Each structure stands twice: as structure tokens, then as C-alpha cells.
């Protein structure tokens, strides 16, 4: 009672206004729910339901907040802060949208090139400020002058940049848009929610609502996390759920999707093995070719087995992707293990080699694929040229006549996928080398010393110490490389023409997903492929995890 009596008149007024405001918010959202359903607004049913749920929540929470503030409980303040903050964010985004801020980025792209040099000046100013660390000046005055020069250069560069990209026109346009009715609503909302937030954040008000020491951390925690969390929910978690929903529909990005149940999945997984009387018996003799397409056949003596599937492209893609993983992962991991062991020696120049090996992994895959496309050229490419040189050398050395194969790398269905494997291995090897190197540097040297005392050779040390101690790194390297390899797309898309390669030899799961979703616009089906892909990736990682855990159990 004594605490309440000390509340001054101003705070009391704020609290009263807060209660009214909460009630008003609840009332307004209740009215808008009614409007949505009564006036039959033009929007899809799911949007109506979603908006009603959100509105209903606002009604309940806002009324609860009003009641708690009336009771002078701190949870009322928390609830009000959350609601007002969300309202503020919504109004802010709405205002940006009305002012065509997001669309305006395109216009910025038009003039951005002219501004880049001035951004360079800004960066220069920043480095000027950094310079001070490297050349400490004894005189206090000089030190501050360098810093202020850097500040002015940065500011000047940035102002010039803004001027070059026509920022002023953009701002005027933005403000002009805000004077439209919808813009005014957004700005009004911003002001009201902002004022409410400001009033709630006043220490007196917080005190009047019995704030405790831990509450500050709760508020700050959610506040700091909120931009990230909101964006994450809207652009990651939400779409993920949506993808799951789409995989059960025939969504095509235009019409309202129809519920299909498990149809997409059963089409993907519908396969059939049939016995063939002879290895070259026609597929139509043994399966219903209206449903099934031949994917492949295996010969068993005089008979054979036919593998047919309802969606043959999926199974071809799965076959190619798994083949790719099976070769690309060892090809990029084993040489990396070897190289990292060499780099771990304390010879001079190792940092240089490490940097060189790392270079392929940072270059754009699209650019790299274009380079390799010309390296692979069958008539003028360097790879065939090197092979020719090698064979000539070999023939002269041993006086034999090995025939130059003149491999048609990307246009031959037998080598096309292998060409992609080589690029991928080349590109990830250096990254894996650096990972292994770090793992190696964490192995305590005493282990090796002890082994040397016991008379172990270099080979024994590698098998007995290096490999077991490196097991966690190996697990990390192998699983990340596998996850990445399962998603192979860009190399295939750029290098192959058409992307699925000769006789579908390079169609991969992601490529098939892209083709289904964005060329045939069967987006529901594409979503189902995505989930199958995810399950395959998850399964592979789980297997590796199990193996790693078992091997580490053996160790201990």
C-alpha cells in the first residue's frame, strides 16, 4: 500500500491511459475480425483464418494486459511491451512497404555503381583510423587528429556516396508516398505504438508496476533476439512448414493447391522389380508401361532383373547423386588427409601452400564451372592436351603404342558425371585440408613422443595415433562434404547442355527438383522431392554419426 501511495500523478495518468489503450486495442482487433468475416473481404480462406487467429490472440492478450495493469502486476507491463513492440514493428514494415523502400532497392541498384568509388573513400577513412593502432603516436594531440581526420573522411565519403546514388530524391519520394492515406495510417500507428512503448519504458512506470531485477534481462533478451527471431520465423521456419504442407498438394504457385494426401510421395517411391526371361527382354513384356518406366536392368546369367519406377527421373537422379557422393567425397577427403599431414610438418612455406589450396573453395561455383568447361573441351582443352602429352611421353619412354583416348568429357554419358566429380573434388579439397590441419594441430605432441620411444614407425603412428585422434574432425569433414555433395546442382547446370546431360547421365536430385518446381511448375511435387532429399541426407549423416560414435567407444 505504501508503494502505491508514492506513485505520482503523472505515472498514475500513464497507467490509466495504458489500461484504456489496451482495451481499445482489444476492441479494435475484435471489430476487424468481424469486418473480415462479415464484409466478405476479397482474400483466400487461409488468410482469413490466419488473420482471425492473430486478431483473436491480440484481443485475449490485450485484455489480459489491461487487467494485469489494473492489478499493478508486472506481467501486465511485459504483455503490453510485447504487443506494442509487435505493433510497432508491423507499422514500421508497413510504412517501409508503402514508401516502396523494398522495391526501391532496385532503383538503388541503378545508381549504386556511381557511388562505389565514394564508398571506397569511406572504407579508406576507416582504415586510416585503424592505422593509428599500428603507428602509435606519442603525442596525444596527433593521435586525436588522425582519428578525427579518419572520421571526417568517412563522413565525407558517405555523404558523397549518398549524393551520387540520388539518395535525396529517394527520401523525398519515400516521404511523398507516406502522405498517402495508407502511409498516414502507418505513421500514426508508429507514433502511437512508439509513445506507448516509451511510456512503459519509463522507470517510474516500471517501478509502479513492481519491476524486479530479473525482468530487465527478460525484456532485453527478447528485444535483442527479436529481429533475428522474427526474420527467422518468417523466412525460415514458416516456409519450412509450408514446404511440408505443399508436399501433400498439387501446388503450382498460381492456383489454390488441392490436397493430394500421400500421392506425391507414393509416385516418387512407386518402384517395381521384375524378373526377365532373357537379359534383353523388352520392358513392356513384364511391366505395365503406362505406369512404369525402365530405370535400369541387371543381368544374372541367362535371366535378368528389370528395375522400373513410376517416376524414372527421380530414381536416375538418386542414382547419379549417390554415385556422385560415393566418388566426390573420398576424392576430396583422402587427398586432403594426406596433404594436411604434409602441411603439418614445420617446414617453411606451409602457410603459403595452405592459402593456395584454400583458393578454389572460395571462388564462385558458376565461374569455376565455366573455366572447367573450357578445360574439358575435347579438341582444344588443356586436360586432353595434358593426357596427350603424358601418353606421348609414356610411349617414347617405354617404346609402346598406347592410343590417345581423346575423351569427350562432357558429351559422353560415361564420363560426364565423372567430370563433375573432379570439379567438386578439386573445389572442396583445400577446405577439407584446412579442417584436417586444425584437427592435427590439436593432437598433443606427447603421444607421438611416447610412440617414438616405443619404437613405432611413421606408418604405425599414422594408423595408431593420427587417425583415431582425428576421428571427430573426420566425422565433421565427411558429413559436411556429404551434405554439400548431396545438393550438387550448379556445376551440372552450367557445365552440361542440356543440364541433365547425355542420356540423363548427370541429372541430380536438386536439378530434378528445380526442373519439377520451376520449369514444369509442379511445386507440390518438388516439395515432396525436397523432403525425400532431406531424409536421404539425414539418414547418411545419422549413419556416419553412428559409425563415429561406435569407433570412439572402441577407443575408450
Amino acid at each position, binding site marked *: 500500500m505504501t508503494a502505491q501511495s508514492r506513485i505520482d500523478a503523472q505515472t498514475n495518468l500513464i497507467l490509466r491511459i495504458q489500461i484504456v489503450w489496451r482495451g481499445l486495442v482489444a476492441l479494435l482487433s475484435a471489430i476487424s475480425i468481424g469486418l473480415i468475416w462479415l464484409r466478405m473481404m476479397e482474400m483466400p480462406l487461409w488468410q482469413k483464418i490466419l488473420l482471425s487467429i492473430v486478431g483473436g490472440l491480440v484481443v485475449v492478450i490485450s485484455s489480459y494486459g489491461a487487467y494485469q495493469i489494473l492489478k499493478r502486476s508486472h506481467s501486465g507491463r511485459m504483455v503490453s511491451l510485447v504487443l506494442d513492440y509487435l505493433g510497432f514493428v508491423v507499422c514500421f514494415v508497413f510504412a517501409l512497404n508503402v514508401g516502396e523502400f523494398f522495391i526501391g532497392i532496385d532503383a538503388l*541498384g541503378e545508381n549504386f555503381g556511381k557511388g562505389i568509388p565514394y564508398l571506397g573513400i569511406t572504407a579508406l577513412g576507416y582504415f586510416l583510423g585503424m592505422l593509428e593502432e599500428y603507428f602509435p603516436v606519442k603525442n596525444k594531440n596527433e593521435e586525436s587528429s588522425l582519428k578525427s581526420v579518419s572520421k571526417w573522411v568517412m563522413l565525407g565519403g558517405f555523404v558523397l556516396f549518398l549524393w551520387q546514388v540520388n539518395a535525396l530524391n529517394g527520401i523525398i519520394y519515400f516521404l511523398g508516398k507516406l502522405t498517402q492515406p495508407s502511409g498516414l495510417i502507418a505513421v500514426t500507428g508508429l507514433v502511437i505504438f512508439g509513445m506507448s512503448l516509451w511510456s512503459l519504458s519509463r522507470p517510474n512506470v516500471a517501478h509502479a508496476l513492481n519491476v524486479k531485477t*530479473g525482468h530487465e534481462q527478460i525484456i532485453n533478451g527478447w528485444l535483442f*533476439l527479436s529481429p533475428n527471431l522474427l526474420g527467422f520465423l518468417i523466412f525460415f521456419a514458416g516456409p519450412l512448414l509450408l514446404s511440408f504442407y505443399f508436399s501433400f498438394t498439387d501446388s503450382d*504457385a498460381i492456383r489454390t493447391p488441392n490436397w493430394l494426401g500421400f500421392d506425391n510421395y507414393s509416385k516418387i517411391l512407386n518402384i517395381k522389380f521384375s524378373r526377365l526371361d532373357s537379359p534383353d527382354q523388352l520392358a513392356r513384356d513384364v511391366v505395365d508401361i503406362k505406369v512404369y518406366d525402365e530405370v535400369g536392368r541387371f543381368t544374372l546369367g541367362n535371366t535378368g532383373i528389370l528395375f522400373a519406377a513410376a517416376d524414372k527421373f527421380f530414381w536416375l537422379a538418386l542414382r547419379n547423386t549417390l554415385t556422385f557422393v560415393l566418388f566426390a567425397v573420398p576424392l576430396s577427403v583422402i587427398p586432403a588427409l594426406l596433404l594436411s599431414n*604434409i602441411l603439418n*610438418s614445420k617446414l617453411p612455406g606451409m602457410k603459403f601452400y595452405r592459402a593456395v589450396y584454400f583458393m578454389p573453395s572460395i*571462388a*564462385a561455383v558458376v565461374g569455376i564451372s565455366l573455366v572447367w568447361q*573450357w578445360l574439358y573441351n575435347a579438341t582444344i582443352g588443356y586436360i586432353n592436351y595434358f593426357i596427350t602429352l603424358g601418353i606421348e611421353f609414356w610411349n617414347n619412354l617405354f617404346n609402346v603404342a598406347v592410343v590417345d583416348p581423346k575423351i569427350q568429357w562432357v558429351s559422353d554419358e560415361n564420363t560426364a558425371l565423372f567430370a563433375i566429380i573432379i570439379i567438386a573434388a578439386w573445389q572442396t579439397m583445400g577446405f577439407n585440408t584446412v579442417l584436417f590441419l586444425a584437427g592435427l594441430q590439436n593432437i598433443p605432441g606427447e603421444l607421438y613422443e611416447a610412440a617414438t620411444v616405443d619404437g613405432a614407425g611413421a606408418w604405425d603412428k599414422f594408423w595408431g595415433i593420427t587417425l583415431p585422434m582425428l576421428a571427430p574432425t573426420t566425422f565433421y569433414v565427411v558429413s559436411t562434404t556429404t551434405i554439400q555433395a548431396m545438393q550438387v546442382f550448379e556445376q551440372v547446370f552450367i557445365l552440361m547442355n542440356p543440364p541433365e546431360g547425355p542420356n540423363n547421365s548427370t541429372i541430380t536430385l536438386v536439378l530434378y527438383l528445380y526442373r519439377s518446381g520451376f520449369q514444369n511448375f509442379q511445386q507440390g511435387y518438388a516439395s515432396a522431392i525436397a523432403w525425400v532429399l532431406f531424409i536421404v541426407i539425414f539418414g547418411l549423416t545419422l549413419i556416419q554419426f553412428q559409425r563415429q560414435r561406435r569407433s570412439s567407444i572402441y577407443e575408450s
Partner: protein
Amino acid sequence: MKSYRFVRFLSNFGVYFVLTFFAFVMLFPFLYMLSTSFKIPADTFRYPPRMLPRDPVTIQVEGYEEPLPLYFVEVDGVSKEYALAKSNIKVGVYAPADDQTNTVERFISEVKPTGGVMNQQKVTINGEEVKLFDVEVNGQVIPMILVSQTTVGEFIDPQNPESEPIFQNVRLSEPVENISWHPENYTEVIELNNLGRALTNTTLVTVLVVIGQLVTSVFGGYAFARLRFPGRDTVFVFYLGTIMIPFVMLIVPLYQLMVLIGWTDRLASLIIPWIFTAYGTFLMRQHFITFPKEIEEAALLDGASRFAILKDIIIPASVPALATQATFTFLYAWNSFIWPLVIINVGNEKNHVLTLALNVLRGRASDTPNLILAGAAIAIVPPLIVFILGQRFFVESVAGSGVKG
């Protein structure tokens, strides 16, 4: 002792040999890209391929308007530089009908048909009628048949154009070349093939994504690492669980979301969804959690706000971690391809990023690899420069992620 040293020398030699071999394998495609991007188209299609870009040399010869290309020509057993004055001169290989191995070569324009144009004589060989020509051999006219044809070029001595010309096959002659670089390939690809606009778009997108992602992950990471609030750990576990989910899972629903908001074909769709990442937040959290708590508590007692602590104490001390994440994000945003491919229309070249422009260039300039590879270099070199500048931070932190993982 001496032999021990020798063995060590040998093993070191072996080590450097293996390392240099792999370094060559790693660097060769980049060197090839750079050298080809400075070539002229004809040079790129030459076999055997050469590293340095070369141009054919031409020379101005008296009596000719255009400068003439120079070739190596063998005159009296000595190789000399002669100018090609006239090419595509038709030469016939003639032989008597009864002895086709005994051939002579004559310019077709100088050989007359036997019996005149209107009434050319013919012989029958293997049941086929073959035309006869009057060919002069050592002052004697002999009727012969045309066995085959080739073309030759007329080569003249540039110092003495009036002297006796040399005739020989142009394609088999080696042109005189000098090393010359063609940086204009880059200006051509930037101005004519939309790579300039794509470059600025990519830069804009990358800069905004890097800044946006740093801001959201610093705040999120700090909240996860330092602030205690109910629900924090649940959300964090949720974040961790999604790190493994590959991006292709989201491509369809995110596309539909962009259609709904109206951001298809807009640069905004390449920026806004990318500034919120679970992985970046996780990395920042891992970094902030190692930061000593005592400094923060002291600042709190002095009445500093959480925001002030973050801005004045934690961020200045975290520049290496921030630089690392900025480099990661830079590479990811700069190199991304599948999302722009899906969301930006091929026809809307104004909003193309580099990877998309390269994809278009690949189809458009398939007969000029020098332009394609100049485009590839524009896409590849800036990340390499960023890498070389931030190498120290970057390689160390990649190494760190492996040890922790």
C-alpha cells in the same frame, strides 16, 4: 651424419614436390582463366593450347592498302618472315591419265582445258569420264587429268615486294606472333554483356546482406550468450536443429512467399530473407560466450545499458570474429546462384547478379571463350581479394569450426 642429412634433404624435396604439384593443380584453372581472358578469340581455339596470349603480327607493305600478316616461310633452306599478300589461290594437282603418281602442281587459272572450253576432251578411267587439261611440263604440253586441288597463299618479302613470291599452304605455315594482352575483353564484357550492372547489383546485395546479417546475428548471439530469459534455451535448440537443413528445402515455399509479397524479380528478395540466419547467430553466440563476464558486470554496476555494453565493450573486442563472419557471408552472398536463378527473371537483366549474368553470357558468347572467362574472372577475383585480405581471420576460423564440430 652426412647420409642422414641427405635423406632429410630428399624427404624435404619429396614434400615440396608433392605440395607444389597440388598447388599447380589448384592454381592452374585460375591461371588458365586469367590468360584466356586476355586473348583474342582465334588464339583461344588454337591447338596445342598456350598460356600467354599472342597476336599475329602484321606489316605495312608498299603497294598494299591493308597491313599484311607475317608468316614464317622457308626460303632456300632458311626460315624468313614473309608477308601474306594473297590467300585462297587455287592450285590443281595434275597427272597423266596413265600414270597418276607422276603429278605436277599448277595454278588452276593458268591451265586450259584440252580442246577448248566448249569441247573439252575426256578419257574414261574405271568406267568414269574424266576431263583432260593441257599442262605444260618443261615447255611441252601434255594432256593431264585433275587429281586433287588445294589452296595456297602468295607470300612476299616485305622489304622487297617486287622479288619472287613464295607459294605455300597458309594453314600449315606458322604465323609470326608477339605476346599481347587484351584488357579490352573486360570492358567489352562489362559494357555489352550487362556484367557492369550485374557487378554493381552483386556488390549492393552483398554489402547489404553482410551488414544486415552482422547486425541481426550480433544482437541474437548476444541475447543467447549473455541474457537469461525464459524460453531462451528452447529457442536456441530450435535454431541449432535447423542448421543442418539444406537450403533447397526452402526454395519452393520461399518462392511462393515472394510471389505473395510481390518481391519476385526484385533485388529485395535476394537481400531481406538472407539477413536472418541461424548459423551466423550460432557462431556469434559461440564467440560471445567466451567473453569474460566480469567486465560486463562492472559496466552494469556503473549503470550502462545492455546496448551500450554491446556497442562500446563487446563489439570492439570482437572485430576478428565479426570479420570472419562478414567474410563467410560475403562469399555466400556473392557466389549464390540457385536462388537468384529461381527468383529473378532471365529477361529482367536490370536485376541480374553476376552468377545470373554469367549464365546468360555462357549461352550468348559460346564462340568467344575469352569473353566468357573474362566474365568468370570478374566474378571470381573480388572474393579472392577479400580472401587474401582476410586470410588470417578466415582460415583460422574455418579450422576452429572443424575442431569444435
